[in-house]
């Protein structure tokens, strides 16, 4: 078995030394979100065995809307007709995924489960100008009736593709591809000048 890996995990933003940039008080606060385990889950929405296996493993039903279904710790987001994203805390140590894999296997192996935990980095954007900042780089409608808290969308923001999870009216988590993360962070800081963006660790 491999080492305990928590100490060797490295964020793509590490090279930016956010600590030296922290501070400021403005209309929007940028910070790096907690790392997560995340998985692509593929399968047919109308496949009952598949849906049962997911529910049995996670304790939450497959969401049919692009909204997120929230379990005790897990977040399950529908991203496409046959695609979901499972996001669980890093501390979970892969238990959700292992349970899901075994439930799927027991159901005869429908769909597919792919670990993409290292594929994205989480950046939190919060504050009364959070939507204004994001709106400098995406055409998504942030009106709460169109995009209510709790929902997620995959879209394009500035120079990258991103999965935006709206936690509250003015709090967002952006899951961005790790190879883009540094450029994206710098883009956010640059566009954030207009709102006196502050940086938190």
């Amino acid at each position, binding site marked *: 078995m491999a080492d305990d890996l928590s100490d060797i995990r490295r964020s793509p933003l*590490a090279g930016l030394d956010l600590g030296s940039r922290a501070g400021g008080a403005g209309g929007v606060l940028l910070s790096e979100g907690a790392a997560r385990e995340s998985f692509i889950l593929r399968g047919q929405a109308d496949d009952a065995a598949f849906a049962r296996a997911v529910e049995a493993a996670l304790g939450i039903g497959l969401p049919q809307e692009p909204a997120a279904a929230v379990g005790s710790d897990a977040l399950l987001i529908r991203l496409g007709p046959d695609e979901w994203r499972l996001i669980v805390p890093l501390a979970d140590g892969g238990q959700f995924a292992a349970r899901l894999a075994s439930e799927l296997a027991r159901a005869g192996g429908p769909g597919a489960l*792919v670990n*993409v935990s290292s594929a994205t980095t989480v950046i939190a954007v919060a504050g009364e100008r959070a939507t204004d900042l994001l709106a400098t*780089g995406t055409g998504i409608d942030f009106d709460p009736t*169109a995009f209510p808290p709790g929902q997620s969308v995959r879209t394009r923001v500035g120079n990258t593709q991103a999965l935006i999870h709206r936690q509250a009216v003015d709090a967002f988590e952006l899951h961005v591809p790790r190879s883009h993360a540094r450029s994206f962070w710098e*883009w956010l800081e640059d566009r954030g000048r207009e709102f006196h963006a502050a940086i938190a660790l």
Partner: protein
Amino acid sequence: MRRQPFRAAEGGHLVDRSEPLRFDFDGHRYEGYQGDSLASGLLAAGVRIVARSFKYHRPRGVWGFGSEEPNAMVTTGIREDARANLKATEILLSDGLEAFGQNAWPSVAWDMGGAVGLAGRLMPAGFYYKTFMAPTRGWSALYEPLIRRMAGFGPAPAAPDDAFYAKRRIHADVLVAGGGPAGVAAALAAARAGARVVLADENVRFGGALLRMPGEIEEGDGLAWIDTAIAELETMSHVCLLRRATVTGYYDHNLLTVAERPDDDVEPSTPAVRLWFVRARDVVLAAGAHERPLLFDGNDRPGVMSASAAAGYAHAYGVLAGRQVVVAGNNDSIYAVARLLRGAGVAIAAVADSRSGGGVPDLPCRMGWVVERAVGSRRVRGVLLRRADGKPEDKGERIACDFVAMAGGWSPTLHLHAQARGSLDYDEERGLILPGRAGGVNRSAGAAAGRFDLDGCLAEGWAAGLAAATSSGHERPVGPPPRSPNRSAGDAPVSWQVGPGKRFVDLQYDVTAADIELAAREGYQSVEHVKRYTALGMGTDQGKTSSMAGLVLLSEALGRPVARTGTTTFRPPYTPVPIAAMAAGLVGEGRDALRRTAADDWHEAQGAVFTAAGLWRRPRYYPRDGMEEVETIEAEVRETRGGVGIVDVGTLGKVDIQGRDARVFLDLIYANRISTLGIGRGRYGLMLREDGRVFDDGVIMRLGEHHFYLTTTTAHQHAVMQHIEFLLQTVWPELEVYASDVTEHWFAAALAGPGSRALLGRAAPELDLSDAAFPMMAVRAATVAGLSALVFRMSYSGELSYEIAVPADHGLALWTRLLSEGREDDLTPYGTEAMGVMRIEKGHVTHAEADGRTTPDDLGLGRMVSADKRGVGKRSLDLPALRQKGRRQLVGLSVIDTQARIPPGCQVAESSDMKPAPPLGHITSFCYSPTFGRAIALALVENGRARTGQTVHITSPMTGLSMAAEVVPPVFYDAQGTRLHG
């Protein structure tokens, strides 16, 4: 400093007289007030000449009030800070502002270029098409440099724009373009109904025409009503009010651009311009109308201006354009203007109304009189009036004045309506082009729709706002519409009084009535021809004041109705938009994110020289003290081939493939057979485009019964994914296959060289690395350097080699642990250059060879195409041209002179003379091979394989270099593959 001789004793709702400001124009200091525009400040100071005209260098003064201004273009700031071609009417005065007139030397007041005016008769429209043809290169050598010296209005920029620019993308139920009475009424109605409203107006204050001329709304001052309405809108969270914001473009599916100039007093975080992209469900176009000029001799003289602008300077700024005015026009607005000016202290010399009869008793009216000529050169000193229906021999009457306010009627602002592809209707009776059928989801209201009375504008705006709200699903009650007693339409009959002399139609490009007549006479009869032949309407005012006059003159010249003449196309933007605003957020990495691998921080700390690989950066080589680049690269190759090297291959595309039909599908997308692959084994695969050309290559690994992992080239990560999804979703939807791009999840490093087995053996002690247990093209899950990893045995360098993949979060740990583990092996990190050398030595193809034109056979990979199965692109290989003899084939070239080095971009030829003749082929990849001690290359050469053993020449005609080389098979190094086993 000069005082403000033309500032009225009182008045001016936009200026704050308690805050004087100083500003400079052409080196002279003047005073103005907070709230002034540069134009009002200059007029208050008595500056009459603010510009010189483009072609004839005639003196020009302020003509208009806002973005329609054709004349008063200035440059602000000096040297690096200079900004050219700004309209004085749009510049908010700020303390210390420095502005300069343009197109003149030494100044607009005393311009040597005025001499050009004398040669004006030689320069009718299109004169340059008729001459400058001899000698043959005369145009570019002799004449064009002169023309270019005259080109342009303002100075060329001397430095980049370092101001901050911003963008905002928002959604609205209703966008209202224009904040005059109609626009404000529309916004209020829509907002009360519950719609998300954006109201944008180009002025510093909402009110539109009411800023220039007072009017009454709801039994009170119109502007006060506007203020109240704006105050109500400001309390609504679903309303966005944008001042100094011009709606500039109307695009597909109701996307509109709005250029906002937030405030000239910038704090660091306030952008110079914020460009809004508003996606609106519905749009109310209430952008008002532009006043038309009258066409008489000398109508460009400083002091001749738009009547509503003259009124506006008095009303909004308390500034008088002169002491004594002749008001001339063809509609009732002249009386209101004259009264307003009189009230402000201007003497009314005459009010010339081209219509006969009527008139008002309180003003010196000349009914049925028109201006024939403006007298004066550097500024107007009087006008010659004559009877509209008079005979040419009638002597007119000269009237002294120091400015002329001309009111030629109104042209509705159709730009946005037309940009949205709405149709245009010509109203013959009223002489107006009106918006017809709407293009996008929008409605025009107020003066923009030809309603020129205040009550009509309010009613129409209100109704439009309500309708727009309703169409976007908002129906809350809104109360009754506002009313105004001003119900006179004040329509102008068509009247383009034309006499002899220089009658300017387009002031900015110096286009006269005679130019338009000449164009028509010469056969340039389409309105677009006239525009292009004369430059009519092509200036920075985009024909706001000139195009209607041009249209009518052309129609008259051709004796055809205006409706048949049509208009030129209205092109966005409505007013010029700063390029820096369009570029905001898109410069550098903001435009193309720089992709970094998980080990990038290490490479950077190591001082690696990077190279671009698509959006990624990769170490090109790792510099060493005292060594040149080439030596370093050679060392990296030597040490890898002789010992062990490590390279970051994290940029390769990776795709996870699962599903019951995965094997069937992989057979279809690769030219070679994949389905026979055993679990734990891998295979090199070749993807073709449907046209039979090589598309991509990579390695396919089978991880489980229905589970595969494949790599793509760095360049084609996204293209391959899209290709796979295309085939799965549109061509073979019956297949159950799930493809997921996992490029970002995995980091990978390759260990290469005879020492790689020993090193990996220590890093992964549990792994049996014997040939038997872990053969070529096998894949194993293992713990490497304490990290869970996938290990592939494959080789790109031609040496024994392993690729180790771990989740990217652990990528840096893998990299550093392998490097420290490899210290005793002298593990050498190498970059793309050394990697390239080794792959050329080994004859592997990249996109330099698979350049989208080559077939598998061209590249010597013909045997990889399975004869006994279907697949993408295979059918095309049977087309005659792809089987033709004489195609260029991949060969190796071995340079005979061991001292020679191949320059970039070479051709391959039979001889070294480099004389024009079809070459044999071209170099695709080249390097100096430290292994062979000479330069080698891969090349595509006509019938290349048959030329093996022959001598050809590698040539670079542009540098004059050539060298002889022997044609050899493309695999230079270890053709038997023995080194793959260490």
